[in-house]
């Protein structure tokens, strides 16, 4: 079972965002205006194989946007999918080349799962064969059962398979991973990646667990409110995540809605270039804005490859000077851009935003905004101020290897 999952994590060659642009044509170009129930404008271009993740708090209208894209509710504008850019907006839902896994999928209860898979693939002109994925999603044991005999997570996995059978160039995923346990979450992620690779499709995803979003996303879409109309802005994942977390903080500070986010666990994503593997030391070395950066040894990356590394705000510390005699292998020079006191969800502390100093002109300026969480005590003793240079210190295991983009 596990080996099956691991086998599907096939790492593609090192491809920078830039070179990928030249190689493949757009898989989905969307520019739509939705007026009900939440007025919003969405425009974004996804290349084949890319996943865009929508980052916005509950009630922002993500599901209604998806319904509109899939044709279940009205929208104006343009949705072009596939290599030929076929226009979808005037088509009824059943004719659109868009597959959609809803948040709580309804499966046809009169059929066994196997018969359901057969029925749906018989209905398609060019069905995508998902028989290989049944085992991967741990569904072989329930093929003879009916939908109502399955658990919620199993039903969601079946719905994912059904949507894939459609073989559409655009896949919409609304909270597909949220009902799954750890193993199945990774199986679903592997399956989605493999599907996108095989079909050259693109995907849009709604997901409230940031770690899950990070595991798939190539692009973030963050909801911006410019007074008259809300619109979704596409940006790199790291920048999008940074902005979204600050939006959450701004909207929720003071009010204690029961979200699972903690300011101390805010995530930052950095793009680093793999330099060398130091297997004997248990480390992999990267270049991050020209600065040395170490993570726990990740054998699958190739030198020269750009990877996303994820850092939790409370795993990083601040130091005014470099610390040569310490076990902190990561010591990056950064400039403080803002400091703020957080009292949120029973937590109290300081969230310090920093920008990494670039020591290498050739390195493409990726997102280098990071958040650091320190206690009030440290803040009072160190008194970090905006625009001051500080060292960000962390151990190698503070960086978690995310995925390749």
């Amino acid at each position, binding site marked *: 079972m596990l080996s099956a999952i691991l086998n599907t994590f096939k790492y593609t060659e090192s491809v920078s965002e830039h070179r990928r642009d030249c190689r493949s044509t757009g898989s989905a170009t969307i520019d739509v205006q939705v007026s009900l129930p939440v007025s919003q404008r969405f425009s974004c271009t996804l290349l084949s194989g890319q996943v865009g993740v929508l980052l916005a708090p509950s009630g922002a209208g993500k599901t209604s946007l998806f319904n509109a894209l*899939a*044709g*279940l509710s009205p929208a104006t504008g343009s949705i072009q999918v596939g290599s030929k850019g076929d226009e979808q907006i005037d088509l*009824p*839902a*059943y*004719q659109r080349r868009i*597959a*959609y896994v*809803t948040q*709580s*999928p*309804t*499966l*046809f*209860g*009169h*059929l*066994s799962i*196997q*018969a359901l*898979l*057969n*029925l*749906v*693939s*018989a*209905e*398609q002109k060019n*069905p*995508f*064969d*998902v*028989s290989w994925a*049944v085992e991967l999603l741990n569904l072989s044991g329930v*093929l*003879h*059962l*009916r939908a109502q005999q399955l658990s919620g997570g199993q039903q969601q996995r079946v719905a994912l398979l*059904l*949507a894939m*059978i*459609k073989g559409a160039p655009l896949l919409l995923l609304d909270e597909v991973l949220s009902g799954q346990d750890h193993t199945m979450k990774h199986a679903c992620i592997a399956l989605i990646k493999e599907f996108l690779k095989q079909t050259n499709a693109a995907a849009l995803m709604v997901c409230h667990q940031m770690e899950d979003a990070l595991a798939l996303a190539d692009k973030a879409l963050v909801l911006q409110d410019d007074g008259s109309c809300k619109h979704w802005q596409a940006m790199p994942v790291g920048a999008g995540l940074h902005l979204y977390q600050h939006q959450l903080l701004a909207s929720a500070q003071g009010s204690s809605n029961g979200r699972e986010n903690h300011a101390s666990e805010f995530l930052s994503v950095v793009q680093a270039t793999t330099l060398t593997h130091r297997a004997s030391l248990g480390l992999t070395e990267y270049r991050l804005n020209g600065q040395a950066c170490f993570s726990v040894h990740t054998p699958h990356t190739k030198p020269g490859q750009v990877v996303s590394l994820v850092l939790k705000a409370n795993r990083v510390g601040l130091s005014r000077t470099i610390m040569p005699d310490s076990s902190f292998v990561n010591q990056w020079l950064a400039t403080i851009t803002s400091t703020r006191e957080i009292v949120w969800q029973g937590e109290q502390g300081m969230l310090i935003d920093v920008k990494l100093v670039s020591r290498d002109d050739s390195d493409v300026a990726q997102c280098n905004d990071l958040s650091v969480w320190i206690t009030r005590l440290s803040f009072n003793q160190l008194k970090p101020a905006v625009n001051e240079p500080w060292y960000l210190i962390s151990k190698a295991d503070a960086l978690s290897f995310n995925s390749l983009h």
Partner: protein
Amino acid sequence: MSDTDLQATILTLQLASVTTLCLLLICVPGAYYLARSRSVVKPFIETLVTLPLVLPPTVMGYYFLVLFSPNDGLGLWLRDTLGIELVFSFSGIWLASMIYSLPFTFRPLQSAFEQLPKDLYNAAALLGFSPWQQFRQVILPAIKPALYTAATLSFAHTIGEFGAILMIGGNIVGETQVLSLALFDHAESLDFQAAEQLALLMLAFSFSVVFACQWWQKQSAYVGYTSRCQVRG
């Protein structure tokens, strides 16, 4: 069993089969439409469809007799232009049975359509099922038990019909005399042996129909239909 009783039995079965079949053909699309409709006339249509449930059959039969009497009005027009005479004929008792059994077909179907989750239509559409395929592949199989209930109820109900048929059909042997009328004749002429036979026959029939129907419904609730072939791709 006498010849007339046999004739009555055959006639009754004919009447019930034709009525049930025609009712299903009308009610499946009708109930489907009404269940999804938000029209203002919906409550009125629902009332009209349910009316035969509470209306005394003799009242209905009386209005039929008045309406289709070949002496004037609609009945006269029907006889002169189309050559159809509904009073005291098989087509007359067939029409009466259709209306009389209408609620027994329509209501179970309508409530089955209404109980389907709204998302089912959307889910089917998202998987590429056209409206006709949604109906055929998803909706119809989902309401199969209700379809069976509706058919059984209207079949059994038509067999037991008395008042309306007596009013519009008279009691013509071989033409409009159904089992319940034959039984009534025997009882009135104090031929209790023949009456007993028919009564027992109808009792046994009703019991077995309802029993079989319930058994079938239980089966259909637990057994999936296929798990034979592999996923095509």
